[in-house]
């Protein structure tokens, strides 16, 4: 699938037994580890080992050892996160592994133009937003990782960082608050930054307005790209609009809960939790040609006209690509 998921050199993943300090140290009574290991060892050399080989195929020991190595690092906190809280190992081994079946099997995402994402250096990916729940953003993250072998660092709404659990997962998956400071820092560090400038206006728009791009905020994303001198890659996502067709909005409830909207779809809330299952639409994610920003003068980010014009150019590109993709599309569930 991708380089990141290929098993590495087998020798590199074997954790030498000497590295366990309590193992080499004086330990008079048989520790739990001993007893456990003796039992498992006896079972493995007997029938169980043979059965496991039959069940899981050859090399299962190595895979199990890799899994234990992962568990060891997680249990002892022996892993790295960056300044933004991005946990590369957890994202690759857990988050992306969980999202990948959804992208490949459920939505059958077709990724086009992944070659427009440079192999290194900063780049700003700007995409259309839709579908009530930001599944489109997560699918784009999978696409960028699997097709361009880069990690997408998304700029998310502040609501994400106010909610418990969600904020923790978002930070570990590499996302940060949509603000100029964070966007610029990430771009200057040479990261792939993803932004959905329509925000809640785009993701929470009624079904009747599907594939009509909403206003692109204040164009702050263009200013960040200009300051960092990185290209802007427009990205058009088709298929996400129909996952949760929003036909109504519980305005009062939304205001009570402090949420931007509480959607009514053909299945939600009528079918209860089953209504939260997205429709299995067929998706296309098209990355467009990069728009360079390094040819502009140094203080271009301070020129509002230029910033608005660039934002409009990006917006038009995405809108036109959307129409083109919609014409090509045979059916929503194709």
């Amino acid at each position: 699938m991708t380089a990141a998921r290929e098993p590495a050199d087998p020798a590199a993943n074997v954790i030498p037994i000497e590295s366990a300090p309590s193992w080499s140290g004086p330990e008079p009574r048989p520790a739990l580890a001993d007893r456990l290991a003796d039992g498992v060892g006896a079972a493995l050399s007997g029938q169980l080992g043979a059965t496991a080989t039959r069940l899981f195929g050859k090399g299962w020991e190595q895979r199990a050892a890799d899994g234990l190595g992962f568990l060891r690092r997680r249990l002892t906190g022996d892993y790295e996160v960056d300044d933004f809280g991005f946990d590369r190992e957890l994202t690759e081994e857990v988050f992306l592994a969980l999202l990948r079946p959804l992208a490949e099997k459920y939505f059958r995402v077709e990724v086009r133009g992944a070659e427009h994402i440079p192999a290194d250096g900063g780049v700003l990916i700007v995409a259309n937003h839709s579908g009530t729940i930001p599944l489109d953003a997560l699918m784009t993250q999978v696409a960028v990782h699997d097709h361009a072998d880069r990690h997408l660092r998304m700029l998310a709404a502040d609501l994400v960082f106010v909610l418990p659990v969600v904020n923790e997962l978002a930070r570990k998956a590499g996302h940060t608050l949509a603000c100029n400071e964070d966007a610029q820092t990430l771009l200057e560090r040479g990261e792939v930054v993803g932004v959905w400038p329509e925000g809640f206006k785009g993701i929470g728009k009624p079904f009747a307005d599907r594939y009509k791009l909403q206003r692109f905020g204040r164009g702050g994303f263009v200013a960040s790209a200009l300051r960092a001198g990185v290209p802007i890659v427009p990205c058009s996502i088709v298929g996400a609009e129909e996952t949760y067709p929003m036909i109504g909005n519980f305005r009062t409830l939304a205001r009570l809960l402090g949420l931007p909207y509480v959607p009514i779809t053909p299945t939600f809330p009528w079918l209860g939790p089953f209504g939260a299952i997205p429709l299995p639409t067929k998706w296309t994610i098209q990355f467009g040609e990069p728009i360079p920003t390094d040819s502009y003068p140094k203080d271009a980010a301070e020129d509002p006209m230029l910033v608005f014009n660039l934002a409009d150019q990006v917006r038009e590109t995405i809108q036109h690509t959307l129409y083109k993709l919609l014409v090509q599309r045979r059916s929503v569930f194709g």
Partner: protein
Amino acid sequence: MGKVVLVTGVAHRLGALFAGRIAEQPGVDRVVGVDAGPPPAALPSAVQYAQVDLRRPAIARVIAEHDVDTVVHLHVTALGHGGRALVKENNVIGTMQLLGACQKAPGVRRLVVKSTTAVYGSAPRDPAVFGERMQPKALPVGGFARDAAEVEGYVRGFARRRPDVAVTVLRFANILGPHGDTPLTAYFRLPLLPTALGHDPRLQFVHEDDALEVLRLAALDAPTGTYNVAGDGVLLLSQCARRLGRPTVPLLRPALGLVGRLARQLTAPADRAFSQEQLQLLTHGRVVDTALLRDTFGFTPRWTTPEAFADFAAHVPPGPLPPTRLTAVTDRLTGLLTDHRPTEPEELRPR
């Protein structure tokens, strides 16, 4: 003629260590340590001690008497005896008195003030990485962070009135060392760590040695200005807990606040482990950018955040789930799996 350095807050560990270190510097003639209590036992003999309550104007007399030219103000601290009101008075009124005395002392050429990255607050709607020029969306509501923000305000005022004095403000991340005694180390010494459910804050530490070195450079001739001081890298609270072998007890944020309020009724050190601003830190975390410290001030911390934490962890009693015990289990199992393979030749396997 060499420098005469006045160091406030020498009753605290950092103050005493710094006073001892600066006294050994060539070009430093005399070091005067100041604090409110009787002479602290840890103070090196090379440091002259003056028992002055910073809240009284007597500090002006000490500055004049010793002809002080460099003032290192370390008496801005979250700790202290006599409760929060007294600590606040020491921090804020003490700083005002000291700055007032400095303003009237023509001999003072350099002022170094210890502040904290807590002045940026901890909030979910703030940028992930703070630079020195960023203003937090919400100022710290109270506690030590508010004190430090007010102290910095008075220092800015002083710098305007005495442009001939070189002023350096150092915003330290949480200082850790083998024998650190701060609200955060009090928290990490608890057998179980209560955390906010659904939050895993990013924390940054600076090692005591680096803190002392930055202060030393600032007191001698380093560029002036305001600098963030933190070790490279970031640790999540969950990582810290696992490295210490201390299980976490995730509580809903309101419940954690309640625990904090109960704990503040207890005696030390439990009471200081759960101050309001520390609970904010343990919920939302805080990370600062140290590019300015590296490029302009000219100092690169020798200890990274994980290294500083490891040094601290090595000097606290292990928790109920020491990492070594967990690795013993996984390593033994891994060893079995990899040993097991060569002992069973290919042809013996059932087809």
